[in-house]
């Protein structure tokens, strides 16, 4: 058995931009994901972190072909996702699932909780009988810490944290191997976040799940992940295991991002040096030439504006930066 469950190579998602004239000519592309490669091993959690608009959610969606990638390949358990016809893709989708960011928008308000959690069982024809389905929905609700008696209630009767648990139960319904968690705690209150994080951890341990954990909150990603990929403007700038990334960030963007995360400890806060980045993230319609980070990089030097750095191994990290010899 291959150790790598998900293998992403040069994944590219470009959204076309059309002119406003009578003939809506294709004038440009939003390069939301622009050549992203990473691997996720069985049973591990890869954290994908980046600021809003960097393409992390699009990456997650393209991975499951919920958005069609415009380039690159995604291999899931040695199956090339891109080559699958609609029927085959549907069969494969039983083995992958997604937990969405907003528990208020991702549950149909007109479906009861039982229906929401049971729907994947119907779609994939997994329940042998009505009683079997009833039992399994009950089990799923219990697994995420909700009472099976809630099955006839509707989403509006639940709090944000409980709704996110319903979303998790739905994702678990088909007994998937791999779950893309897209900002699963961002919409929740602080005291509720911890409960959902612990639940995801328990489920991973008990069911042997593999996660892609997408978040903008580096503290949450660090808490949760075995390895972390840092994304900036459609590209991955650094991948390393969690301790390594924290102690020795290589890429200047990773360094800045780490230093910007406020630590809940005033003594530490006063003593640390914060790297304040200048300016804003450039538009993905017209990204800078060379390294995407070069207009804001405090360590910019000669090759950065002209040559694309390539993700290369350097001291246990994969880093895309000319400082570490990542030349094209």
């Amino acid at each position: 058995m291959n150790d790598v469950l998900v293998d992403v190579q040069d994944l590219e998602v470009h959204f076309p931009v059309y002119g406003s004239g009578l003939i809506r000519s294709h004038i440009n592309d939003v390069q939301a994901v622009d050549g992203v490669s990473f691997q996720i091993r069985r049973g591990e959690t890869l954290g994908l972190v980046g600021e809003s608009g960097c393409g992390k959610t699009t990456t997650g969606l393209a991975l499951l072909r919920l958005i069609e990638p415009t380039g690159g390949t995604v291999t899931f358990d040695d199956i090339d996702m891109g080559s699958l016809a609609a029927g085959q893709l549907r069969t494969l989708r039983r083995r992958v699932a997604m937990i969405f960011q907003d528990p208020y928008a991702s549950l149909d308000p007109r479906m009861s909780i039982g229906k929401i959690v049971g729907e994947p069982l119907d779609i994939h024809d997994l329940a042998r009988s009505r009683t079997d389905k009833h039992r399994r929905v009950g089990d799923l609700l219990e697994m995420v810490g909700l009472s099976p008696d809630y099955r006839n209630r509707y989403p509006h009767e639940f709090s944000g944290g409980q709704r996110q648990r319903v979303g998790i139960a739905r994702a678990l319904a088909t007994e998937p191997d791999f779950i893309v968690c897209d900002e699963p705690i961002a919409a929740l209150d602080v005291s509720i976040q911890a409960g959902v994080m612990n639940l995801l951890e328990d489920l991973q341990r008990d069911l042997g799940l593999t996660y892609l954990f997408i978040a903008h909150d580096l503290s949450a990603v660090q808490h949760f992940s075995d390895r972390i990929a840092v994304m900036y403007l459609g590209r991955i700038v650094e991948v390393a295991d969690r301790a390594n990334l924290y102690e020795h960030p290589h890429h200047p963007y990773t360094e800045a991002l780490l230093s910007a995360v406020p630590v809940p400890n005033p003594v530490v806060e006063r003593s640390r040096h914060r790297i304040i980045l200048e300016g804003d993230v450039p538009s993905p319609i017209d990204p800078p030439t060379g390294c995407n980070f070069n207009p804001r990089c405090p360590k910019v030097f000669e090759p950065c504006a002209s040559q694309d750095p390539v993700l290369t191994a350097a001291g246990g990290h994969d880093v895309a930066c000319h400082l570490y010899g990542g030349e094209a």
Partner: protein
Amino acid sequence: MTEPILEVNDLRVRFGTKRGVAEVVNGISYDLHPGETLAIVGESGSGKSVSVLALMGLLAQPPASVLGSARYRGEELLGMPAKDLRSIRGKRLAMIFQDPMTSLNPVRTVGYQLIEPMALHLNLKGGPARERGLELLELVGIPSPDARFSDYPHQLSGGMRQRVMIAMALACDPDVLIADEATTALDVTTQAQITDLVAELQQRIGMAVIWITHDLGVVASIADRVHVMYGGRFMEQAAVDDLYATPHHPYTEGLLGSLPMPGPDRPERLMTIPGLPPDPVTMPSGCSFAPRCTYADTDRCLQAVPPMELLGNLHSTACFYPLAVAR
């Protein structure tokens, strides 16, 4: 100690709703001194935003009813005639809101909105107002202010919009700046830019800041004093170092324990607080945290509201069984 610039005493806010009276703020008191940064921390629904909207006179009455007292330099703000309040609000007391997209007017240019408070409060118009507007944009770190002056809000990024909001708030050199979740909608690197900017401006201008947030990480990096709010009451108040080092209230302990700490070591399991925040229409009769508290007992905690008690150097908590206190 200097005279407090703002004194809030037993502030209460209620709303009449179809289901009954919602008790959103249930008697909070604090002083704010010139130049200091006070953080009010709480989760959504704790009443933190409503409490400052009330003292700014920004709640429509009815449905709200505001009781208690809030004095700015000795002058009572609550119940002050609208005309008088207008001469203080936006001039001496300024506010920045959470969402810079919805709190800027989308059909007016940045420049127009920036000049508006100056015309109103300082009688500054035309050339001098524009001059001052450009100065402010520069002060908050907006590149090429000349060009941005005639831009509309949608042409700016989130961070830039929040900078414009700050520039507007600073237009009349306020004594007190209230920042209501001012960085919540922003990315961390932009958040760092904004908190840095406010701290720098504070040192330069000497204004006091009330920072309202749910993020204990941000609080650690900017606040002098912290008040932890839950169910419309303060649970604990302390200097920032004391609060993080020795939380006395079980709620504060729970909040701090539920935060993932950035660090190289494999983290421990996070603490969780069972249950849900209270419904303001059916507030518990005792301590508002008692139904979720692991230390609560039935006789005292569920029956009576614990008073705020001073336990150490400016460190007080409203709990019958405070933690980490020799008794």
